């Protein structure tokens, strides 16, 4: 880092005394405005995502790191509505838009307009394919594979698996499922004997599992996409079957159930999902780009995994009825950026 750049960031050093490591602030972003464009708020993951955004960006605005960080959610989860929202944000003069997109492709036109107007666009979770935008993606395929890997450690003899998928036709559902099936190819002692769509909703998953269970042989493991493990456990219980090894998705009620089972009969499993606080990682990445940092266009978010050892701790940190979460800091964002640079 050059001397002149250090001098440039001197002002930021003073305002960012709240612990944010300021040496990589290349430019002052205290007059910059960042907007969150969110396509959906109707489940607890999205609610936790918005709460994290408020907490972290509220602090950043109070500390003078950025001037504004407004969250906007569309009501109908539709690409057309979100495209209009982005156009409004361009007119309102935001410097950066952080977006969880309704569609990977349908918003590309609006995003290109934003880029042409000099607005930095950072997409996360629901990412966009438009090349001018940054992407903070989740390796969903690896998330699926990881589940089967874990099952192979716990159940070396293998057996029959039940797969609970998400919402049909959504990219995330296809990716996780592909990962699971690649995992099963790698560990051929397992066979997926049944597959249902739980729409990432517990009651739907419970209903679908209850419907398919009577026609299934003995099940040793259930691979899931998060948010549906507790419903599956209820369906197994209602059918009078032994509880198989169910991979959970970091929800508080799932983890509480796991803890109760563990105390009652030594039940052990794992839980994996994406922390809703990934919105705050995207915020810091946007801030770094505005500060002039060189950021690769494709970044990867780490998973949030809960194991038997970390169960108590995660459970204690998760509000009742919510999802295990992690708020990201500026340092986390810098680490993710430098890792992505190293990979190139």
């Amino acid at each position: 880092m050059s001397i002149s750049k250090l001098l440039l960031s001197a002002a930021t050093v003073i305002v960012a005394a709240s612990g944010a490591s300021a040496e990589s602030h290349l430019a002052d972003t205290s007059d910059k405005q960042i907007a969150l464009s969110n396509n959906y708020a109707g489940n607890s993951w999205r609610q936790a995502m918005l709460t994290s955004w408020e907490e972290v960006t509220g602090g950043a605005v109070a500390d003078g790191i950025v001037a504004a960080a407004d969250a906007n959610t569309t009501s109908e989860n539709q690409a057309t509505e979100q495209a209009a929202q982005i156009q409004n944000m361009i007119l309102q003069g935001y410097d950066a838009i952080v977006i969880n997109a309704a569609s990977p492709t349908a918003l590309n036109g609006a995003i290109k307009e934003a880029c042409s107007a000099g607005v930095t666009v950072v997409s996360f979770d629901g990412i966009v394919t438009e090349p001018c935008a940054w992407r903070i993606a989740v390796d969903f395929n690896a998330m699926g594979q990881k589940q089967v890997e874990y099952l192979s450690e716990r159940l070396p003899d293998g057996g029959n698996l039940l797969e609970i998928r998400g919402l049909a036709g959504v990219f995330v559902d296809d990716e996780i499922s592909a990962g699971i099936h690649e995992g099963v190819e790698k560990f051929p002692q397992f066979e997926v004997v049944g597959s249902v769509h739980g729409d990432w909703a517990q009651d739907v998953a419970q209903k679908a599992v209850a419907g398919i269970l009577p026609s299934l042989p003995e099940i040793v493991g259930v691979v899931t996409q998060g948010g549906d493990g507790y419903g599956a456990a209820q369906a197994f219980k209602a059918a009078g079957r032994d509880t198989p090894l169910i991979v959970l998705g970091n929800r508080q009620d799932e983890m509480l159930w796991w803890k109760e089972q563990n105390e009652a009969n030594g039940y052990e499993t794992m839980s994996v999902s994406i922390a809703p606080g990934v919105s705050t990682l995207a915020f810091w990445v946007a801030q770094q780009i505005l500060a002039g940092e060189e950021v690769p266009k494709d970044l990867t978010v780490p998973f949030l995994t809960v194991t038997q050892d970390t169960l108590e701790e995660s459970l204690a940190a998760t509000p009742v009825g919510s999802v295990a979460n992690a708020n990201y800091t500026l340092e986390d964002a810098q680490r993710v950026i430098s890792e992505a640079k190293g990979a190139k």
Partner: protein
Amino acid sequence: MKTLVSRPWLWSWVAAAAAFALTMALTGGGGASALAYAALGFGAFAAIVGLGQMLVITLGPGNVDLSIPATMTLSGTLALKAMNTEPGTALMGLGVALLVGLGTGLANYALIFFVRLPPIIATLAASLIYQSLAIWSNRGLRIKPPQELADFATGRFLGLPNVAWVGLVLAIIVWVLLERSVWGRWLLASGQNMRAARLAGVPVELVRATTYVAVTIFAAIAGYLLASFSGGAALNMGQEYLLMSIAVVVIGGTSIAGGMSNVPGVWGASLFMFLVVSMLNSYGAGAGVRLILTGLIIIGIVIVASTRRAQR
């Protein structure tokens, strides 16, 4: 004319039985009671919201309630928040749910009557408000139901799920109201020809108001039970009941043009909607195939049921 074959509700029951038999053919008869039990339990939720939707659709063309999912979510969320997992609060929670149903029903009807909005627009717009209230009231946090209520919602009586008993009792009440009460006759008359009914002295607007309140009360009861059944209210818990409530009414043989209700058909169609998904899942059909086949089967049943009706 009164032969069994001419009854439009028959076809949903035939379809449900066929789906059940086809699933059993795969398992060789194993798990029959488990499948029937699951169908009755999960079918009950669709039946309860379907009964409400049936009353509204009976009012005639253009009458439909699209606020059912949001009302379910709001009633489940507020009731569980009010109970706060404390024992002995189940009835109080039910009271909260019923008040939510009353409130959303009155609000829907106020939009339809005073603002003169078409029911589709009025209930859809209002549902955005109800959904937002549910989000605002609890930010999606999941509160567990009190233990005795959870036990009731997932329990059984005389071998049948408790929720199925609730659905059955509500179905009988609706049937008696429709077939044996003045209100039911008024509803059917309004649905057949609203102008003629008004000229004949039927208090048409009173009938519409009570119907729009009845549907949200049914949705509120379903939301309360579903939230207790699945261990807490979720913001997306009502989602699949939007199309489901309309599908079970149409498959059940109720005329979409209004003026003719069919209570047994709603139950048959609710069982069918659960069983057909279970059947296709059991045969390992992928999501695409499953959705296409479900659509084709529904169209087939509606065609069969309506041609039978036309021949009468």
